[in-house]
């Protein structure tokens, strides 16, 4: 988009630097809303997609074609991705932040970036839901309608230029997610998850809208740009109302991104909600919440930076620390991933805490790569758990390396990615985020982030190790390991096997002793002790149960999603295009 004055409607021009409208439309009595239609395409695509699915479901017989609803949803998602990319191209080179639809929406790089992200999540989410819903006997148009409207809400949150629009997006997103969480009709946990999410979500929404109201009360504007220009022009004599409003808004959005201490809902909901929806939710709700938070804090309230940065600091620290530590003691895979995603949110908050353009770009990169990792992971969990989500415990992955090596390999990459091991996108994500706070001299936060990553590596690698345990352990059954640890704790369990094997007296003469010794250094029971370190006795037994005997069946669409997620995780970790793309986000407000 070039600078200067251009025509928006017949006889009406707008200057895109000053935003001044001139021409016929300024005539008395004329109400003109400037609309930049390209900015609205994602809404048309997603909303239109939802409507098409609804209408078709009313017209077509009950079970028309297998995969039709998922296909339509994937199409809408692809449309959103394409449109996001087109928007990005159009916006290249523009240095201002154009607002559209009566100043309610931004049309900028960040919006386009997040539109792509949500489109990707929709495509992947719909593709993995198809097989799952088929298996659970829940196939139908409803979840896809909900998913599309949820994505619409998410795009709205990322594009919002004011608190009302943000709230509108938040509610569209939230209500869809409540229903999706409760969607598994014959699984009580799902209903409970939906209800808990709904009640706590409503509380959070109330807090958010109250905060928006307070900010309006203090500044007289609901638009970010209005707020910031008011604060730039006026020095508030008493800013208590404004600060209070800011805190309430942070809490409301902090709930959505599941930052500690507003995270309580997430383990219960992640555990109960249908698995593919959880993957979708973890990606979309988090990204949308952060997009909103980024805009509010960086765009509307930059003048309060010295106040909100410590708050975010606390949220980030708590999330990283508690997310990691609590994930350590989980034996339910989905619960563990819930805490892991809390800790991942902590890293995003670290990037946000930097309060710089570099931080914002780091956050965008982090969220984009996390989308692939989390959806891929939940896709795998979804196929492993079996019909009726029978097995969600850690031991469901036991021996996966021998049962289904490809799936185990994919899971390994995704686990390494989330743990932030080099050559994966997770490593680069953590790197850029920590680099951003280091740029601000926040050494403590960087240190906390790195220590948190070290703790987190443990529970991710635990999953990886369990996958490589033998499905059954004839010499040391699960019960044996439990007895061992119950009497002596993990240290004793390891030491018990260690010294006698490693001591000089037992090594055989000749080179062969070396091999045998190395083989014995980590015998099956030792490995089990390592795998279950930190768990309580009862949980150990759970984590070491034999895996289900059923064959793992991976639907084609799910397999494709997993493959793409894995490839992307490696691709974005070893090459630069994705990182460069995130770094190219033009951020006019930070200038």
């Amino acid at each position: 988009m070039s600078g200067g004055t251009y025509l928006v409607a017949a006889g009406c021009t707008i200057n895109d630097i000053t935003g001044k409208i001139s021409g016929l439309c300024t005539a008395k009595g004329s109400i003109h809303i400037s609309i930049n239609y390209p900015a609205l395409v994602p809404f048309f695509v997603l909303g239109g997609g939802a409507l098409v699915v609804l209408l078709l479901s009313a017209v077509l017989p009950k079970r028309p074609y297998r995969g039709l609803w998922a296909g339509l949803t994937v199409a809408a998602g692809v449309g959103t991705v394409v449109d996001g990319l087109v928007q990005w191209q159009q916006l290249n080179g523009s240095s201002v932040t154009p607002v559209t639809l009566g100043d309610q929406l931004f049309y900028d790089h960040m919006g386009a970036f997040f539109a792509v992200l949500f489109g990707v999540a929709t495509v992947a989410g719909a593709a993995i839901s198809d097989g799952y819903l088929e298996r659970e006997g829940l196939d139908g148009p409803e979840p896809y309608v909900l998913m599309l409207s949820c994505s619409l809400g998410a795009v709205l949150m990322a594009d919002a230029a004011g608190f009302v629009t943000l709230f509108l997006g938040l509610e569209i997103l939230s209500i869809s997610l409540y229903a999706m969480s409760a969607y598994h009709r014959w699984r009580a946990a799902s209903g409970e998850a939906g209800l808990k999410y709904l009640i706590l979500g409503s509380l959070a929404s109330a807090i958010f809208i109250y905060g928006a109201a307070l900010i309006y009360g203090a500044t007289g504007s609901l638009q970010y740009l209005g707020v910031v220009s008011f604060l730039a022009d006026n020095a508030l004599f008493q800013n208590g109302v404004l600060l209070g409003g800011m805190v309430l808004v942070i809490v409301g959005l902090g709930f959505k991104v599941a930052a500690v201490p507003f995270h309580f809902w997430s383990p219960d909901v992640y555990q109960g909600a249908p698995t593919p929806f959880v993957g979708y939710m973890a990606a979309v709700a988090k990204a949308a919440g952060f997009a909103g938070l980024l805009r509010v804090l960086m765009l509307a309230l930059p003048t309060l930076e010295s106040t909100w940065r410590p708050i975010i600091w606390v949220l980030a620290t708590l999330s990283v620390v508690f997310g990691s530590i609590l994930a350590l003691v989980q034996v339910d895979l989905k619960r563990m991933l819930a805490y892991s995603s809390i800790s991942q949110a902590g890293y995003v908050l670290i990037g946000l805490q930097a309060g710089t353009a570099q931080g914002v770009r780091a956050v965008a990169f982090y969220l984009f790569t996390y989308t692939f990792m989390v959806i891929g992971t939940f896709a795998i969990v979804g196929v492993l758990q079996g019909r009726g989500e029978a097995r969600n415990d850690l031991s469901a992955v036991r021996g996966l390396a021998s049962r289904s090596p490809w799936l185990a390999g994919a899971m390994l990459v995704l686990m390494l990615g989330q743990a932030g091991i080099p050559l994966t996108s997770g490593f680069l994500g953590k790197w850029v985020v920590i680099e951003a706070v280091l740029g601000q001299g926040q050494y403590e936060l960087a240190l906390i982030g790195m220590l948190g990553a070290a703790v987190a590596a443990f529970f991710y690698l635990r999953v990886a190790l369990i996958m490589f345990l033998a499905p059954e352990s004839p010499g040391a059954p699960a019960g044996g390991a439990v007895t061992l640890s119950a009497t002596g704790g993990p240290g004793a369990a390891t030491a018990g096997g260690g010294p006698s094997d490693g001591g000089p007296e037992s090594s055989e003469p000749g080179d062969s002793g070396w091999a045998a010794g190395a083989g014995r250094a980590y015998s099956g029971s030792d490995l089990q002790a390592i795998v279950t370190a930190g768990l309580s006795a009862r949980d150990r037994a759970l984590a070491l149960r034999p895996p289900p005997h059923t064959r793992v069946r991976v639907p084609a669409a799910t397999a494709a999603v997993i493959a793409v997620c894995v490839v992307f995780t490696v691709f974005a970790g070893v090459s630069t295009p994705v990182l460069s793309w995130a770094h190219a986000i033009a951020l006019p407000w930070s200038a």
Partner: protein
Amino acid sequence: MVNAAYVIVALPLLGFALNLVFGRRLGEPLAGWVGTFAAAGSFVASLITWVAMLGKPAGMRVASLNIFTWVPVAGLHVNTGLLVDPLSLTMVLFVTGVSSVIHLYSIGYMHRDPGFDRFFVYLNLFLFSMLVLVLANNFLFSFLGWEGVGFCSYGLIGFWFQREVAAVAAKKAFITNRVGDVGFLIAIFLIFDHFGSLNYSSVLGTLVGGHPTGLMAGAAGAIPGSTATAITLLLFLGAIGKSAQIPLYIWLVDAMEGPTPISALIHAATMVTAGVYLMSRVAPLLHYAHATSWVIASVGTGSAFLAATIAATQDDIKKCLAYSTISQLGYMFMAVGAGDYADGLYHMLTHAFFKALLFLGAGAIIHALADNQDMKKMGGLARYMPLTTVTFGVGWLAISGIVPFAGFWSKDAVLDSVWQMNKVLWGIGAFTAGLTAYYMSRQVGLVFTGQARWREASPALAGAGGASGHAVGGPEARAHGPEAHGRGEHEATEPGLPAPPHGGEPKDATWTMSLPLVLLAIASVLGGGINFTAFGHFDFLNRFLSPIFPYATPITLSTATKWTLSLVVLAFCLLGLGFGLRTWRTAEHPALEPVFLRRAWYWDATVAATVSGPLRAAAAALAFVMDSRLVDGFVNGVGTVLGLSGRVVRRVQTGYLRTYAIGIGAGLIAFLAYVTFRVGS
């Protein structure tokens, strides 16, 4: 057209991936053909790249192709890319060429092996890693290839891992190489510390518009002599490990436990020459490190001589060739030490041809004799295996340095430059040349002439029924493997291979195995032609390589001196040849096989007694004290504390909404309380 270099690397990777995923389904022989075509395609791509390079003027033949940049943040730019220049191109051409031939040979050799597809997975992966090693444009990427070839070597030595000897040999190779790799790694750190980059072009200089830049141009004071010496010595430590020189050569002999095509490809022609390549690559650094040059030349000479003496007493046909490889690699290092890199590479090329030929010939013999590797139990094979005899004979004359075979020219060139450096080293080198001719003639004598001793040794072959299957491969032969192994004088066998289908007498192998022999024999005859330094303008290789070795020491000997030296060395060789052939028509000459030589100067035993034993004890003690007490204790302690705190904190997660709401409320109130202190500020 230079972009064909991408294809050179990509094809083996593709072949590797295909065989990894579909190998089992492709089965035999399709998996082998996939691998072979990947290698051959890579060779064609190398030729295309080479022709494209020849089209440019001599000084402009450098191209850098970027693959990707990793971590473009905080000053650490790791550009991964390919560097195509005369040096890497020379390496690539012979690596892909020899490798294609050996891939083809392996199809026949690995026939009916249960691990057929796995073999080609490794083989393609090896080729890929080797190409990465020589084509990489920086030290780190090269190191990746360096480790990659090491890993494949490990996997292929231990290919028949069910046999303990093979598994132990694989481990020995791996660990010995680690010692060298430490040197390589520290060198990389030093280089980064001094130059702030790992790219060859920024560290070593490059050619810009036909003129050398940076270190290559001899930028004054670019690097202190001590730093250059330290870096090159550390790199040479890596080279010693990889190229099996004194004192890290032991692994190469044990590596003969691997299938014979592997011995030919990895442990004779390509991987073991990586050290020579590395030292030639850092030639601009060596120019500032005279001490290192001396170390290289001395170690090379010592290895050449020592290994040749041992080779003269070995019974195992492959071990004999392995010691010969160590000896010939010594010659290459002599040339590098003397600053005559081009002739070092020249000898590397010709050696690749004739040594691969000898190994493949040995493989055909072993195959024909139902896995007998003991030369004392061979003899008189010339009558039964004419093609093998002729091709092996060509290899024998080539390595013995007989005019006009390839080995003569390259060894001559190497010894000329050594003469110029130091007369004593030359003397040892010339004597070793004679020794080489002797032990190779001994081998030829034992294997091809005299009595057919294999009739008693392998009754199965003679059709007399299996009274004592002593040297016949198979599980029963393995039983005595481990204890005999330490003495290094038993006949290792290659079980896993079925006895040849024909029950009768040994004969030449199938065409997939014979064609490579013929091709390599032709190369061993004509290979010398790539660099006739003796006759005016036929020194193609020298001229091709000279732009990137601006500091190579020029040979200033007069023609008369050259001729004299050649004739002296040739006389040594003929003497050794005649003596060897005459003596070894019969198998028993104990006086010529002193025990200390048969046991390789007791070096293996010394290492086992002085290093391995105490080291093992120390490692065990460390494992006990450090690892299980300190490290494990700490890790477990942290794990326990974290787990405990997690279990305490999780009690907050009651499952009741009211608790959750209180949590949210508490957080909200805490933050509100905080901002009340900031009101007005």
